[in-house]
C-alpha cells in the first residue's frame, strides 16, 4: 500500500485538520513551521506561511498545536521548517521539544545533506542530485527519503513530474529506505502515477488550497480522492519491495 503524506501549515485549526486528513486516509502529516523567507516554497505555501506568522505561529505556538494534534491522531507528525527558524530556537532544543510534543523527526527545507550531521532529520534529494549525494542523504536520513520530484519549488503542476522515475531508479540503486515523492504532486492522477514508482507521495500546496477553498470537508474530499487513487494504483515497478514495508511510517 502506498503511503500518503499530507502537508498542513501550522495553525490553530491544525489539530482538527490533521484529524480530518488521517480519517480520510493520510498516513503521515507534515506540519509547516513557518518562515518569513521560504526559498523552497511556491506561492501557495509562501502565502500560508505569511498568514501563519501574522496569526502568531512562532515555534512555541506550532509545538502547542502539534501536541494537540498528537492527542487526536496516531500517525507520524513531522515538522518542516527552515534553517533560520531552527537556529533561533536552537537545533538541540528544537529536536527535544518537538519530540516532547509528539513529533517524529523533522525536515529542514534549506539544509543540504552534508550539513548538521548531528541533527537527525529526513533528508531531501532532487532530480539534480548526483548519485553520491543521494547515497549520503539515504545513509543519514531518519526513516525515509524525501524525493523532490521536480526541479523547482513546491506547488502543484499540470503534468506528472517527468523526472521522478529516473530519480527513483537512481535512489533505488543505492538505498532500500522508503522513498516518498513530493513537490509538484497534487491531483489523484499525479499521485497514482508517482506511487507507481515511489513508495508514497507528499501533497502540500494542493492540500492547503483544499482547506482554503472548502475547509475541513474540502480537505477530507481531496485526501479521500488521493487515498482511493493510491489504493487503485498498480504495484511499484522499480522499488525495492519488502524491506520498505517495515519502515517507521
Amino acid at each position, binding site marked *: 500500500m502506498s503511503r500518503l503524506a499530507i502537508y498542513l501549515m501550522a495553525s490553530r485549526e491544525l489539530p482538527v485538520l490533521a484529524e480530518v486528513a488521517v480519517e480520510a486516509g493520510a498516513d503521515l502529516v507534515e506540519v509547516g513551521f513557518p518562515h518569513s523567507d521560504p526559498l523552497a516554497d511556491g506561492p501557495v505555501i509562501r502565502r500560508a506561511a505569511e498568514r501563519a506568522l501574522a496569526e502568531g505561529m512562532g515555534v512555541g505556538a506550532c509545538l502547542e498545536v502539534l501536541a494537540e494534534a498528537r492527542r487526536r491522531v496516531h500517525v507520524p507528525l513531522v515538522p518542516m521548517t527552515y534553517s*533560520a*527558524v531552527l537556529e533561533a530556537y536552537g537545533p538541540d532544543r528544537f529536536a527535544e521539544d518537538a519530540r516532547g510534543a509528539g513529533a517524529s523527526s523533522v525536515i529542514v527545507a*534549506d539544509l543540504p545533506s552534508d550539513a548538521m550531521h548531528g541533527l537527525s532529520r529526513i533528508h531531501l534529494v532532487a532530480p539534480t542530485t548526483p548519485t553520491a549525494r543521494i547515497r549520503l542523504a539515504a545513509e543519514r536520513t531518519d526513516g525515509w527519503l524525501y524525493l*523532490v520530484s521536480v526541479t523547482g519549488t513546491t506547488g502543484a503542476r499540470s503534468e506528472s513530474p517527468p523526472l521522478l522515475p529516473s530519480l527513483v531508479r537512481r535512489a533505488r540503486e543505492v538505498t532500500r529506505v522508503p522513498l516518498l515523492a513530493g513537490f509538484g504532486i497534487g491531483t489523484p492522477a499525479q499521485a497514482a502515477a508517482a506511487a507507481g514508482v515511489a513508495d508514497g507521495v507528499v501533497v502540500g500546496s494542493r492540500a492547503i488550497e483544499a482547506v482554503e477553498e472548502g475547509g475541513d470537508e474540502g480537505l477530507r474530499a481531496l485526501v479521500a480522492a488521493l487515498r482511493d487513487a493510491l489504493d487503485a494504483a498498480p504495484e511499484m515497478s522499480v522499488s525495492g519491495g519488502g524491506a520498505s514495508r517495515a519502515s517507521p511510517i
Partner: protein
Amino acid sequence: MLTVEIGRGFGGRFVPETLIPALDELVEAWAEARADPGFHAELAHLGRAYAGRPTPLFRAERLAPGRRLYLKREDLLHTGAHKLNNALGQGLLARRLGKDRVVAETGAGQHGVAVAAVCALLGLECVVYMGEEDVRRQHPNVERMGLLGAEVRSVTHGTRTLREAVSEAIRDWIGRVRDTHYLIGSCVGPEPYPDVVATLQEAIGREARDQVLAAEGRLPDAVVACVGGGSNAIGLFRAFLEDPGVRLVGVEAEGAASLSRGRPAVLHGARSYALADAEGQILDAHSVSAGLDYPGVGPEHARLRESGRVEYLTASDEDALGAFRLLSRTEGIIPALEPAHAIARALEVDADLVVVGLSGRGDKDLGTVLG
C-alpha cells in the same frame, strides 16, 4: 566537517538540495576561470574598452575644504555604477558554464541594468526580478532594462523590495537551474557567490590604492563606503585589509543596518548578520535608497565586523539626502543615494586623507529626491 553550520561561522550554503550541484559547478568554473589567463585578458579588455576602467580618483576640494577627501568615481563606469564589474565577470562565467539564460534581482535597478547590458553584449537571455515598490521608485532603470532587451518581472508580494526580488530570483533559478545562471548582484547568497562577487569588485580597491599612492605618496587614513549587501565596500576594502594604518568604515542605512542593529541569522542561502526577530523571522528594512533597502549583508562583512577590522556606522535618510545635495552643489557630481550615505559619514570622520567609494550616479534617484 563544514566550517559554517547553523549557529557557527558566516557564509555557508543554506539552500534546497536542488541547487547544490549548480553551486558545485560554479565553484569549479570559477576556479578554472581564475587560473585561465584568457579569462583575465577578456575581462580586463571589457573593463577598459566597454566599461571605462580605470575609473578616476577625484579630490573633492569644495566638498571637504581643508582636507584631502578623494572620491573613487565608480559613478563614471558604463551603466552608472560599480555593479558592471561583477556583471561582466559573471556574464563570462555564465558563458563558460554553457548557460544561455541569466536571472538576476535588482533593488535600485543598477545591478539589473548592468546585467541587462552584459546579456545584450554576450547574447544571453535575461530576466530581472524587481520589487513592485522599486519598479515604482526607480522607473528610469526599468525602462533602461527593457531597452537592453531584458524582461523585468515585478514582484508583488511581501515587502515588494530587494529582499523579495532576491527570493524570487532564487526560486526561478531552482526551477531552471540546468540552463540558467543566477547572476547575484552583491556579495551575499550561498558559497561561492560572496567571494566571486567580492573578487570581481576588487578592481575598485586595487585602482584606488595605486591612485592615492600616486597622488599623495602615502596610504589614506580612512576608507569609507556604503554597505547594503556590501559589494562596493568589500571591493574597496579588500585592497587595504593588510594596511593596519588604514581605518576602514562601512556605512549602513539606519533603517537597514544589519551589522549595526541585526543579529546572526540565515537569509538567502547564507548565515550572516540580518535584521531578524528572536524567532529567526526576517524583519523589514527601510531606506530611501532602494540599493541599501535590504535586511541582510554579505558574510565577509560579518567576519570583518567580528574581527574588528572594519567599523560599521549608520546614516539616516536625511543624512543621505543632505550629502546628495551637498555633493551636487559643491562638486557638480550628483551621486546615487546609496554612496550619499558614505559621503555623509566621511565628512565627519576624524582623518585628513580619506578615500570614499562613490559607487554610482544619481540620475535614477531624481524622482525620489525631487518628489
